[in-house]
């Protein structure tokens, strides 16, 4: 047991730092600082820089473009990118779909889809959830019937509705779970399809979230024609792919590095804000105790994650214990948002998003949008397998209850 970094690891950290400093896109930095909704192009700027450098897919196998980094290097990478407030790489193609393709796909599918994912040339969305199938994902009803068309080729005709599709408004392609055998047990009749979002019959409709943003969508599929070769893995065995994907969705969900960065921001805000007695808020006995408790909680999570990483590098995959990371990680993120909002007192109330440019100067700049972040942050304990479902998983898989 030791916690020291080797000289090589420290040199790697310096290299990463320098690279970010010299190559992070200035226009993206500006857009982030302004806190506005990013355009599709802006979302992909940093992705493209990293693709050129060869650093965009640390999680992939080396022969497919992965970095071959050790778990410690990956840890340093996530720490440094979070510290520098780099935009996270969108997970849909890179860390959700790609592992499914390189684990279950044919060589042709790998050749066709992985390079575009790597280079950020195709935007993917995740079409799993349906109005009637959330936590109980296996009850999904979107149906795909196999036909032979006039051109002599085989297609699936897809009908149904997906919902909560994150950033589906920008998506070029989506990966979908569809029911191909209505008579089988729920988990046994599902297939995993890749669908071009420009196919006729697809309609994407905005869902506005409670803080006013456009992040999720309904996706309606009306007789959407999908070539059979766009199916990953065997017909009716899509659930196997989906479960593998969910495991990948869980890794990294702890968000330790990002929470550390947000804790720094919170400390800064609380050093600037005044307490009722007139000193700095961070000097206020009540407030400083809450920050200290949160720091301790975050440290515990960090070391739990490090233990999980160490387990992974010694060949054990991420087990159901990683549900701990999801539960504690999201609770800490939410607590950080809550304390930041609390710290700014009265200036949590103004809703200035629609007034930008005309009504600046209301309260300190760092207060702007904190309430929205807190409201929006409630999603993290709901999606990716809700925290209740994660507790069910630990109860069942770990404790054997």
């Amino acid at each position, binding site marked *: 047991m030791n916690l020291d970094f080797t000289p090589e690891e420290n040199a790697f950290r310096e290299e990463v730092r320098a690279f970010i400093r010299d190559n992070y896109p200035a226009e993206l930095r500006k857009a982030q600082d302004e806190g506005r909704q990013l355009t599709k192009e802006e979302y992909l700027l940093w992705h493209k820089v990293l693709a050129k450098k060869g650093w965009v897919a640390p999680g992939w196998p080396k022969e497919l473009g992965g970095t071959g980094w050790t778990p410690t290097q990956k840890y340093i990478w996530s720490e440094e990118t979070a510290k520098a407030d780099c935009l996270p790489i969108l997970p849909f193609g890179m860390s959700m779909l790609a592992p499914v393709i390189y684990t279950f796909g044919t060589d042709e599918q790998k050749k066709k889809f992985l390079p575009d994912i790597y280079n950020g040339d195709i935007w993917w969305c995740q079409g799993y959830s349906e109005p009637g199938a959330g*936590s*109980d994902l296996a009850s999904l009803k979107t149906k795909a019937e196999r036909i032979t068309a006039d051109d002599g080729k085989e297609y699936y005709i897809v009908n149904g509705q997906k919902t909560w599709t994150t950033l589906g408004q920008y998506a070029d392609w989506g990966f979908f779970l569809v029911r191909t055998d209505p008579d089988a047990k729920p988990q046994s009749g599902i297939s995993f399809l890749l669908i071009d979002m420009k196919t006729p019959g697809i309609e994407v409709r905005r869902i506005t*979230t409670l803080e006013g943003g456009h992040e999720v969508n309904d996706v309606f599929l009306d007789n959407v024609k999908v070539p059979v070769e766009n199916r990953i893995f065997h017909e009716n065995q899509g659930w196997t792919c989906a479960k593998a994907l969910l495991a990948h969705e869980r890794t990294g969900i702890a968000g330790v590095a990002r929470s550390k960065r947000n804790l720094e921001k919170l400390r800064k805000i609380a050093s600037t804000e005044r307490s009722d007695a007139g000193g700095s808020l961070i000097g206020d006995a009540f407030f400083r105790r809450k920050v200290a408790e949160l720091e301790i909680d975050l440290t515990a999570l960090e070391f739990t994650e490090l233990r999980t990483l160490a387990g992974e590098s010694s060949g054990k995959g991420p087990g159901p214990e990683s549900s701990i990371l999801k539960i504690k990680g999201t609770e800490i993120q939410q607590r950080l948002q809550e304390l930041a909002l609390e710290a700014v007192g009265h200036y949590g109330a103004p809703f200035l998003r629609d007034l930008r440019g005309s009504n600046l100067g209301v309260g300190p700049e760092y207060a702007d949008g904190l*309430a929205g972040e807190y*409201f929006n942050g*409630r999603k993290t304990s709901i999606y990716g397998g809700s925290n209740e479902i994660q507790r069910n998983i630990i109860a069942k898989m770990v404790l054997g209850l």
Partner: protein
Amino acid sequence: MDFSFTEEQSMLRDTVASYLADNYDFDKRRAALAKAPNWRPDVWKAFAEELGILGAPFSEELGGLGGGPIENMVVMEELGKALVVEPYLPTVVIGGGFLKHSGYAGAADLIGGIIGGQNIFAFAYAEPQGRYNLADLTTTAKKDGAGYVLNGHKAVVIGAPYATHFIVTARTAGGQRDAQGVSVFLVERGAAGVSTRDYPTVDGFLASEVYFENVSLGADALIGPADNGLPLVEKVVDEAIAATCAEACGVLRRLQEGTVEYTKQRKQFGVPISSFQVLQHRMVDMFINLEQSISMTYMATIKLSDDAERSKAASAAKVQIGKACKFVGEQAIQLHGGMGMTDEMAIGHYFKRATMIASAFGSVDHHLSRYEFLSLGQAA
């Protein structure tokens, strides 16, 4: 011991509830808040003329209904249930409170204007640096002949964009946070040197930064005693806290009931999600929080007339309400799953209001400290 309402109080509740059911459903509210003037003068007019509720806590000789804090509580709870943004709290409770308790010479006329719906008040007390400390004031009113000259900046003044009158706290003597040297002034919206920067709030209200630049005030602008206005401010703010707690009870009830209803009809894994024991216990805790909040609201409202106990009671209630708003609000969203995250469903809007109430007139920490001091004395 009696916790029942009089017949008049029950009628008042029914009147407000049935008017709001007919005229203030969630969709109507949303449509009105989305377009100018972003509040509903027609509703305010109806409150004054059709319902007569703007006179609820005023004596009959002033033209009111002869009620008091209990009547405010009854009205505020109903306003909370419908997420009403119109300014009953700043106008009737706070504006009315200052006028009633100060022995202000022009009070009768001004209260007549409140009851009639013409006078709308906003309470300009908070300052950018002051957090929840009512005495932390950099706004100054300097003696000038018989009157005063007012200068300063007030933060997030709820209802200011359409107020006709401001109640302003200002320093007339002493240092920035001294208890002595605080005075209260009545400033008309049109007075020279008053300007506002208006914006909506995250929970659908309108508010402003309010700036006073060399505003000339006559001697008759002073409400209550010169330099020794803080006890009056605290009394009225305690009343505002009790009324806000009552509003919260309405909000919490909708969050709790809405969640029970939703989980009974939402099915996953082939059963209503309300059948999962972990969710049942969560909803039981939401319910307990609601009931405890109602109890504390009654307690604080009853003790408003007891000057020895009033502040302690108000702070105790606000601590309970602040915690309940957070727990019940967050769990309501959690138990709605993705649906709770949408702007389209009312539940998120109740959550946002609950979040803002949690820190209104002081956060849980603020009121815990105040309670500690009042109950246990100075910390060692």
